[in-house]
């Protein structure tokens, strides 16, 4: 597999990252970055709210990655790239608007985290805790999650039925999903502890 041919299309991020780490050939990194250019641009648009600025900063983020990646131990390229992009935009905002933003080290702690990684194969999912955990969510989160995951409704549909805005629906689903995971983990932990005591 060479960066020059097209066989890398099927390669995973991990494989490309390993190729780069072994050879230090920036072409591998370029291929990886190209995969996420539209997402980096989108993130820049979200924070900078200006198309020209977003375009420039997408370019700057790519250069920053090319320059600095060797200094970091990157395990999950996608998560790392998201944090780099977000931090870059927040730093720019802080410089230009003097906003108070959490220090970068706070985010950097999570840089290597792959939030869904542990659940990739459903191995650690505690099947019996789902119903219990769902009950622990607040009403908006419960309603949105129920309609989204179990009735397979879209954000728009949920918004129309519940009266929440699409943005609120999205937020309830994202936060609800996170809380649900935490609740499942907590329930599983308690259950384990009880079993050990018995």
């Amino acid at each position, binding site marked *: 597999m060479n960066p020059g041919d097209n066989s890398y299309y099927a390669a995973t991020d991990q494989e490309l990252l390993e190729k780069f780490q072994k050879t230090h050939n920036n072409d591998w990194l370029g291929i990886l970055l190209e995969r996420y250019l539209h997402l980096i641009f989108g993130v820049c648009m979200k924070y900078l709210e200006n198309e020209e600025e977003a375009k420039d900063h997408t370019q700057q983020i790519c250069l920053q990655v090319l320059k600095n990646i060797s200094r970091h131990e990157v395990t999950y390229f996608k*998560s790392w790239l998201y944090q780099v992009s977000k931090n870059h935009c927040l730093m720019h905002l802080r410089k230009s608007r003097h906003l108070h933003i959490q220090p970068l080290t706070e985010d950097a702690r999570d840089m290597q985290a792959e939030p869904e990684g542990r659940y990739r194969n459903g191995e650690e999912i505690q099947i019996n805790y789902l119903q219990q955990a769902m009950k622990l969510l607040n009403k908006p989160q419960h309603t949105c999650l129920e309609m989204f995951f179990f009735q397979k409704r879209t954000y728009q549909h949920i918004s129309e039925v519940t009266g929440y805005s699409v943005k609120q629906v999205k937020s309830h689903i994202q936060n609800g999903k996170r809380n649900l995971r935490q609740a499942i983990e907590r329930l599983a932990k308690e259950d384990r502890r009880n079993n050990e005591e018995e």
Partner: protein
Amino acid sequence: MNSDSSFIFKETGCLTEQQLMDYLNGRLNEEEKHAIEAHIAGCEFCSDALEGLSAVKNKGAIPLVIRQIHQQLRHELQSHQSKTKKVKMYSWLVALVFIILLILLIAFMATYFSMKKQDHTPQPVSPHPVALQTRY
């Protein structure tokens, strides 16, 4: 209710540019739309990107902008590559010059010290000094 929660936390690949554009332009059916939304419910990167891209006024221009950034990145990579090659070439050249200078220095030192040694070596005194004989 399905008691298996793995489908909620199932990880899917990040959204492609085409998927994002189709979603933003309302070109997807309910099922496809739901699949995209299920992904963004667990992926901050795609969620933020979608939010950002939805704020672009002329959505039709997004692919063009991304293509421009793509070309700039390619250009940057090429110049980065040629810079690296130049730096490598210059470092080899410097190393070569250094090695040649080192060899010359060693050769010079060796010659110098061997000559100096010869100068300091006392001339062997002949047991039968040859006196200048004058022939008469």
